């Protein structure tokens, strides 16, 4: 709706806050084949993908963002076992996972930390709570990729 014929004080766009803290976000989607994938957003204007989704696209500044089921396989860019934290019980392992089409997510990483390597293939673990979990992918999955 074009509202620019109205005076600025009566235009409805960008006059209400983005309620970005209110709802528990849907972080995991299921494809028709039953596969779990990361749920994020895709900008309809510039095609930038992001996870989690957000109200405004940091790439182009637009708000034409729709939900998008992203991927389940990614590569582990780096990781750390956290032994001192202000926010939760330790130890826990977090890492940056790069998904196809230039999406990076911070996620919990399962598995023996001593076996983890930078650039290894990791797969989304379905039973997520309020964030994503990834674990090293099986040999077959790596080949698939």
């Amino acid at each position, binding site marked *: 709706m074009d509202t620019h014929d109205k005076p600025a004080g009566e235009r409805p766009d960008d006059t209400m806050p983005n309620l970005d*803290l209110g709802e528990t976000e849907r972080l995991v989607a299921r494809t028709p084949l039953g596969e779990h994938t990361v749920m994020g957003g895709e900008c309809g204007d510039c095609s930038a993908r992001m996870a989690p989704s957000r109200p405004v696209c940091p*790439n182009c500044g637009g708000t034409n963002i729709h939900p998008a089921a992203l991927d389940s396989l990614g590569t582990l860019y780096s990781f750390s076992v956290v*032994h001192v934290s202000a*926010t939760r019980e330790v130890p826990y392992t977090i890492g*940056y996972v790069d998904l196809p089409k230039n*999406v990076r997510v911070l996620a919990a990483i399962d598995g023996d930390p001593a076996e983890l390597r930078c650039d290894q293939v990791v797969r989304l673990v379905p039973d997520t709570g309020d964030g994503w979990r990834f674990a090293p992918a099986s040999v077959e999955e790596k080949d698939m990729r």
Partner: protein
Amino acid sequence: MSAYILSGAMIPMGKHTNASYAGLAVPPVRRAIRESGLSRADIGAVYCGHAFGGMLTGQRIVKDLGIGGVPVVNIDNACSGGASAVQAACQAVEAGIVDVALVIGVDKLTQFGGGTLPLVTEDWEVRQGMVMPALYAMRARRYLHERDATPADLAAVAVKARRHGMTNPFAQIRKAATVEEVLASRVICDPLTLFQCCPTGDGAAALVVVSEGRFRRLGKSGLRVRASVLHSGTATTGFRDMLRPEITYHSAAEAYEVAEVDPKDLDLVELHDAFTIAELVYYEALGLCKPGHSAALLRSGATSQGGRTVVNPSGGLLAKGHPVGCSGVAQVVEAFWHLTDQAGARQIPNARLALTHVTGGGISGLDHGACTVHIFERAS
């Protein structure tokens, strides 16, 4: 017209549990004003950098000294808050808006009782368990993966910092450590161990910044501000090279361009070594060596006391301490002492050019929220 640093002062960093923000900052402010040769009445504006001081931190400090009736601006830019206050003061002085500015950097981390820095939980990654040492630990892991370097190279940064800190009476840690001791200290965020992380502490530092005209009339020695740069980070939702922090690259590039200074001309650098890995990454980002050559640069001794470009002669954040909002101002105090031949046992002979660098913040999508780079030249 350049801005000039006329005086600088600080308290030793440490656990000053029984001192308030004013208690921490009033002594160095008094001393900086006294050593400037000016009086309270000359101060035209106050810029106070801090991250955790709460409302009106600057006013709580200067009112105790009877300074009032002037603009007092409080600046939070996380760890870069103090340096952002320096930048704001320099900008106001260079623009001719203020003739004499007082800069304060102060923070009191003992109020949190230890542990990692409390980050803003509105941030998605913070909710996922991100803490500052984990961010740097991931950088370190990637560095060890991509570069011809070992954990001993990371530890060597802490060994150098502590060796430098031993000669600095203002340093929180003045005890040497070997590579083995650094690696054997307890793990904070793998692969970073305790001795590879800056200590928690309290501190305050102050500077008097004046116009060129005022500096010339006073006829004292001081520092000419050759560059004063503040940048924010640029967000991305995708890939980020953690070994090429873009925010420091573009902040440093602008500083060198403005100052017309080449990195190889610098006599000393005080850079943001909150964790060992940071120093190596920033050697490259600040142009002290080519990308990929940082571990070799450290091993060569060129950045140690007596070397070509001494990095963190104060002991850096790793040994001197890192009360976040204070650090950017304390770095300038260190540069001031060297460039005015007042650094005592750790004096770098004939130091002429110094660079200070401090980044700020852990929020998702960015290297860091803020980065401040200053270049100073000896002046008289």
